[in-house]
């Protein structure tokens, strides 16, 4: 039977389209068990969006956790033998949502590159992200940031530990007014504070925003990060893929794992980011791999909650009576062959049907 995309729910259609998309670029599917040893997640809990995991004891007395994340497992199991591996996955993960007391099963689709991550690999990931967001439908927007730029900025303001967290939260909230008070209280130099404020507000067309970001650089780390992003956007422009991309240093992922480019994707109509990821060479290093790594995940579950699905509909309700089973089933085959969905039943059930047929 040929697959008729019209018969699929939107979420299923997006998942299938994306699996095809990633396979077309040489990504192979990564499958993992539903649970893994708890210690793997516990040692890297800062990489996860939430520390809460559904944990249980296995028959061997070890603690296991229902997978809260796939990337950790991909990187842990990557061979990293000098070759570059490209994987994608389409899995359910289990997480405790903010403010909730029960675990939620969320569909996630993502792609990861482990090995050599050069400019081409980063651009390919961005292109795949744009196609991924496009498959989700509607207008989309991709924000790029760079951990080096954010770290460099915090270092220039002499912040570490708790102070760095504070600065990152001002960036994340685009909160200029509370930063001003903080700067005054902690005695951050006027000139540097002004630069921080401009970085908070910086957004828009990537090339001009990045040129400005470079001018604002207070140290080599920031300059190098701005240059790296500039070179990436130039390549994207060359590919005609630089539209609907903006620079936004208000996104920052955990600095213990992420090092370079990071990103967040939005789709119009969904109130939060539906896609995120970045360069996480440091995670690969934690697993003792000599490899670079980059990846992203689309929270299909989050997105699905905002997709408008049409009510499930069957084309024909086929009513038959006892003794007419064969005729009913034959007619059902005929209708299917004509591309119509059919439900055979002894009596009407008040469901949603375009037509009702009766076998006499």
């Amino acid at each position: 039977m040929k697959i008729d995309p019209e018969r699929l729910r939107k979420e299923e259609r997006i998942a299938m389209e994306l699996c095809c998309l990633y396979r077309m670029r040489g990504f192979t599917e990564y499958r993992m068990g539903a649970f893994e040893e708890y210690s793997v997640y516990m040692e890297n809990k800062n990489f996860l969006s939430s520390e809460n995991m559904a944990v249980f004891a296995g028959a061997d007395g070890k603690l296991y956790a229902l997978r809260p994340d796939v990337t950790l497992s991909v990187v842990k199991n990557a061979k990293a033998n000098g070759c570059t591996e490209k994987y994608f996955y389409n899995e359910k993960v289990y997480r405790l949502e903010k403010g909730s007391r029960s675990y939620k099963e969320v569909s996630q689709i993502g792609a990861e590159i482990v090995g050599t991550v050069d400019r081409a690999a980063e651009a390919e990931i961005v292109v795949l992200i744009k196609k991924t967001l496009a498959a989700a439908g509607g207008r989309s927007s991709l924000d790029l940031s760079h951990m080096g730029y954010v770290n460099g900025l915090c270092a220039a303001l002499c912040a570490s530990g708790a102070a760095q967290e504070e600065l990152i939260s001002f960036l994340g909230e685009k909160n200029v007014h509370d930063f001003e008070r903080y700067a005054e209280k902690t005695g951050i130099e006027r000139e540097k504070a002004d630069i921080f404020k401009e970085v908070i507000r910086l957004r828009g067309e990537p090339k001009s925003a990045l040129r400005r970001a470079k001018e604002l650089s207070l140290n080599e780390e920031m300059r190098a990060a701005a240059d790296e992003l500039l070179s990436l956007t130039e390549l994207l422009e060359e590919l005609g893929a630089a539209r609907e991309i903006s620079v936004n240093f208000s996104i920052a992922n955990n600095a213990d794992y992420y090092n370079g480019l990071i990103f967040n994707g939005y789709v119009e109509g969904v109130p939060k980011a539906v896609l995120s990821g970045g360069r996480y060479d440091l995670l690969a290093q934690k697993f003792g791999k000599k490899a670079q790594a980059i990846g992203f995940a689309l929270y299909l579950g989050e997105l699905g909650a905002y997709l408008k699905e049409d009510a499930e509909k069957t084309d024909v309700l086929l009513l038959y009576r006892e003794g007419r089973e064969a005729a009913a089933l034959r007619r059902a085959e005929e209708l299917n062959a004509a591309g119509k969905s059919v439900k055979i039943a002894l009596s009407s059930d008040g469901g949603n049907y375009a037509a009702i047929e009766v076998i006499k």
Partner: protein
Amino acid sequence: MISIALPKGRLGEKVYRLLAESGYACSDYTPENRKLVFSDEKSGVRYFWVKPADVAKYVELGAADAGVAGKDILTEYAPDVYEMLDLNMGKCRMCVAAKNDYREDTFRPVKVATKFVNTARAYYAAKGRDAEIIKLHGSIELAPLLGLSDVIVDIVETGTTLKENDLKVFETISEISTRFIVNKASYRFKGGEIDAVLEKLKEKTECSDRKDTAKR
């Protein structure tokens, strides 16, 4: 069209007036009207009146593109939103208050009655002080009077209610004022419109701030 969640009450009305003066008026708005939603095609805005503590939820979950909420609420619920402007209104302090003759017994956990459970917990945790938090929904000042708690954590504007109940402020946790918050995804797709509102509001609040300072 951008939608803005406003807190019911005096403060919300004041912010609405500021927005209206800035060119975002709604023709169907009157203060006596009990309608919960106002919109105006021409100015491209829609307003909702919601309970002040709920504004952050409406904005975080995208039912409104932007909203007006006190820093007390933002600290308490830590919504994932942009906090883009301090409106310099509704100024007050988050305080620890107790009976005038209160003496702290550091050998046992301090009993704290409050509406702001997370704020209180974080404050005492940062001090390394054991605290028993009692969540109340109103008339917080009553708790220490009846011996329900040792202290309260609450917002204090003028301190009149405290004074009338023989209570006083022992510590100030933070300064509070009203903030303009924006949904992160809305800012991607309606950034221009939101920036325009922000720009106008900034002019208005900065000049009213200057007037305040002049008066002082």
